[in-house]
C-alpha cells in the first residue's frame, strides 16, 4: 500500500515536473522570437517568379527559424494590395512580405492612392535581381545601340519599344534611356512580360525591354543592344552593357523581403539571419541562377541604403518628366 502511494506520488511529481518543465520552456520560447507561425505575403500570383522563389525558400526558412512559414498570395494592383496589407499588419515580425524594386518606390510616387508608403515597408533582406536588357530581333535594321539611338534621333517617336506595364522596371528603363540619350521612342506597354515578348517576336514592336530570363530563352533569335547590369551578364556574355557603351544606366527588378515599419530591431536581426542562411545556401543560389536571376545578398542596413539611393534617382527622373 505504502509502496503504491509512494509510486503514485512519484508519478504525480514526475508528471508535474514534466509539465513544469514544458511550461518553463514555453515561457522561455515566448520571450524569444519566433514562437508561432510566420506569414510570408507574396504580393503576386502563384506561379510567378516572386512566388516560386518564396515557395523555394519556405522549407529552408522553417528549418532556420524553427516555426512554420505560411505563404499567402495577396496579389493585385501590381503588388500594392499585398504591400498595403503588410503596412497595416502588426510590426511584430510574424508578418513579412516579398518586396520588389522599382515597384515599392515608383507606386507611392506616381499613384494617388497607393495604399502604402515606401517607408512603411522596413527592408529586411535583398536576395535577387532580374536584370533588364534592351533587344531587337537578329534580322532588325539596327545592329548596335549606336545605330539604334541615331535612327531614333533622326526619326523621333518612330521606333516602338515594348515592355511590361507602366511605371514598372521596363517603363522606367525606357524613360531613363530617353533621358540619358535625348532620343525619343514610343513605349508600347503590355499587361505582363509574356505578352510583350510575344508582340516583339511577332514583329509588332521594333524593340523590347525584357527580363534576363526571357532574353536567355530567345537568345538565338535576338540581338541584345544593351544590358542593364554593371558587369556583363554571365548567361549572355556577348551582350554589351549600357555602361560600357557610355550610357550610365542599370535596370533590373530587385526582389527582397520586408516587415512593417516599427518592427523591433532584435526581431529584424533574427529574420535577417534566417534569410542570410537560406539565400547563401549553394543549392538555393544554383536554382535562382538556373531561372535566369542574379543572386544578391544585401542585409537590412545595406538594403535600406540601396532603396534610399534608388528612390532619389527615380524621383529625379520622374520630376524632370513632370510626372510628379
Amino acid at each position, binding site marked *: 500500500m505504502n509502496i503504491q502511494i509512494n509510486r503514485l506520488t512519484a508519478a504525480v511529481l514526475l508528471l508535474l515536473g514534466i509539465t513544469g518543465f514544458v511550461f518553463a520552456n514555453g515561457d522561455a520560447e515566448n520571450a524569444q522570437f519566433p514562437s508561432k507561425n510566420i506569414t510570408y505575403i507574396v504580393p503576386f500570383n502563384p506561379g510567378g517568379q516572386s512566388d516560386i522563389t518564396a515557395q523555394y525558400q519556405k522549407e529552408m526558412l522553417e528549418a532556420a527559424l524553427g516555426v512554420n512559414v505560411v505563404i499567402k498570395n*495577396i496579389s*493585385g494592383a501590381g503588388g500594392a494590395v499585398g504591400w498595403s496589407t503588410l503596412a497595416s499588419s502588426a510590426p511584430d515580425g510574424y508578418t513579412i512580405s516579398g518586396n520588389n524594386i522599382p515597384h515599392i518606390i515608383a507606386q507611392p510616387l506616381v499613384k494617388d492612392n497607393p495604399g502604402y508608403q515606401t517607408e512603411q515597408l522596413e527592408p529586411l533582406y535583398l536576395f535577387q535581381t532580374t536584370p533588364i536588357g534592351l533587344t531587337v530581333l537578329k534580322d532588325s535594321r539596327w545592329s548596335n545601340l549606336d545605330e539604334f539611338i541615331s535612327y531614333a534621333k533622326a526619326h523621333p517617336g518612330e521606333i516602338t519599344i515594348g515592355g511590361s506595364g507602366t511605371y514598372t522596371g521596363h517603363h522606367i528603363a525606357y524613360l531613363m534611356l530617353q533621358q540619358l540619350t535625348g532620343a525619343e521612342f514610343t513605349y508600347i506597354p503590355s499587361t505582363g512580360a509574356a505578352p510583350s515578348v510575344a508582340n516583339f517576336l511577332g514583329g509588332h514592336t521594333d524593340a523590347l525591354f525584357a527580363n534576363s530570363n526571357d532574353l536567355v530563352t530567345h537568345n538565338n533569335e535576338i540581338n541584345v543592344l544593351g544590358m542593364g547590369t554593371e558587369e556583363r551578364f554571365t548567361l549572355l556574355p556577348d551582350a554589351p552593357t549600357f555602361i560600357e557603351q557610355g550610357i550610365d544606366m542599370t535596370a533590373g527588378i530587385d526582389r527582397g523581403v520586408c516587415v512593417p515599419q516599427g518592427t523591433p530591431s532584435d526581431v529584424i536581426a533574427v529574420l535577417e539571419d534566417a534569410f542570410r542562411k537560406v539565400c547563401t545556401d549553394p543549392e538555393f543560389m544554383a536554382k535562382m541562377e538556373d531561372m535566369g536571376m542574379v543572386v544578391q545578398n544585401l542585409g537590412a542596413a545595406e538594403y535600406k541604403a540601396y532603396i534610399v539611393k534608388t528612390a532619389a534617382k527615380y524621383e529625379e527622373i520622374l520630376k524632370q518628366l513632370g510626372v510628379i
Partner: protein
Amino acid sequence: MIIDALQLLFTPWNMLFITLGVGAGILVGALPGLTATMAIALLVPFTFSMNAVHSLVLLGGIYSGAIYGGSFSAILINTPGTPSAIATTFDGYAMARKGESYAAIITATIASVIGGLIGVFFLIFLAPPLSRAALKFGPPEFFWLTVFGLTIIATLASKSILKGLIGGAFGLLLSVIGIAPIEGSVRYSFGSISMQNGIALIPAMIGLFCIPEVIGMIAKKDTHYNVIPYKREKKLIRRIFFRLMKKPFLLIRSAVIGTVVGIIPGAGGNIAGMVAYNEAVRVSKFPKRFGTGIIDGVAASEASNNAEVSGSLIPMLTLGIPGAPPAAVLLGALLLQGLRPGPYLFTSHGEITYSFLFSLILANILILPLGLISGKAMSKLITGIPVTILAPFVFLLSVIGSFAINNNMADVYIMLIFGIIGFIGRKAGFSAGPIVLGLILGSICEQGLVQSILMGRAKGSAIGVFFQRPISIVMIILTVVSAFWPLIVKIKNNWRHKVEKG
C-alpha cells in the same frame, strides 16, 4: 528518343501521378471557384523535390482533369466550375433540367477525351510551326478577335438580342474598372485598393451563375434540387458514343477551334468554348434547338476546351509564352526544374519533354473512366441530397472559391453583389453569358485597341494599322459574316423557298 521517352514515362510512379493528377484535377475543377490555375499553383511547391518527369506528368494531369471537371458543376448546378466551362452551361444545364444530367456528363466526357486527344496531336506534331503562326497575332488582330467574339452574343442571347447586347455592354463597362492596362490610370475604384484590381472574372462569374441558382433552389420549395431525379438507363454510354461519332465534324471543328484559341496567348479556354459553341450553332441545321438541352452544345464546348489545354502549351513549350493562365503556372514549374522553353527543350531535353507530351495522351484517356465514375456519383448526389443541405453547401463553396483567388474578402463581396445582379437580371430576362463575355473580352479589346493606336501613330497612321494587315482583314470578314449570319440564313431560306415554289 521517342523510345527513351516512352521508357521514362511508363513507370508505376508516373502512372500513379497521372491518375492522381487527373482525379484531383476533376475534383478541383468540379468545385465552382477552384480553377485549374489554382490547382496547379497549389501543387507546384510539392513538385520541387520531385524529378522533372514526375512533376510534369502530375501537373499535366491536373490541368487536363480540372478543365474537364469544370463541366460537372456547369451541367449539374448551372455554374461553370472553371471559366472554360461557361459554354457548357448553355445546353448542359438544360439537359440536367430534363433529368438527363448523366447523359450530359457522358457527352462532356467523351467530347473532352476526343477533343483533348486531337489537341495533343497538334501539340506533338505541329507545335513549332503553329507557335510561329501565333506570333503573327499582334495588337490589331487581338482587337478584331474581340470584336468577332462580341458577335457571339447573338447566339448566347437566343431569346432577345437586345437584352443580350445590353448585357454585353454592361460586361464591357465592368471590364474598365480598375487600373488601365495601358498608362496605368485608375478608373472607378472609388478610393478602394481592392477595386484597383478591377472586377475579377471568377467572383463575377460565380456570382452571376451560382447565386441565382442557390436562391432558385430555396425559392422553389422543393425538397430536392431538379424536379426530375437521376434515372438509370441501360446502354446510355454506348448510345451517346454512337450519336457523337455520327458528328465527327462537330468534334473536330470544336477541337481545332480550341487548339487555335489556346495557341493565341491571352485567349483562354473560356473564349475557346464560346467560339466553338457559336460555330456549332451557326453550322447546325437546327440552330433553334441549341440551348434547349441537346448534346451538340455540350460536345462543342467540351471538345474545344480540352483541346485548348494542349493548345495553350504549344507557345509555352516552344517560345516560353504561355497561351493561358494555367500554362503560365506550369511554365514556372518547368523553369524550376531547369527546363528552359524553346527549340532545344525538344532536342537536348527531348526525353523529358516527349514523355510529358505522351503523358497528356494518357491523362486524356484516363478522363474517360475517372470521369464516368465520378460523374455518375455526382449526378446522383446532386439530385439525391435535400436542398436544405445542398443550397448552403453550394453557397459555402461560392464564398470559399471567391476568397481563394487572392485571399481577399473584397472578392467575396464582389461575388455577392454579382449574385444579386444575376438574380434580378435573370428575372428580367438577362442571361449571364453575354455579361461574362463582355467582361472577358473587354480588357483584351482595350489593350489591343490602345496598343494598335500607339503602334500606328509611331509609324504614321493610327487608323491604317487596323485595316492594312492580312489577318486583320480575315478577322473583319469573319466578324461581318458572324454579325449578319441570321440575316444571311433568312435570305438563303427565302431564296430556297422561291426556288422550290418556282
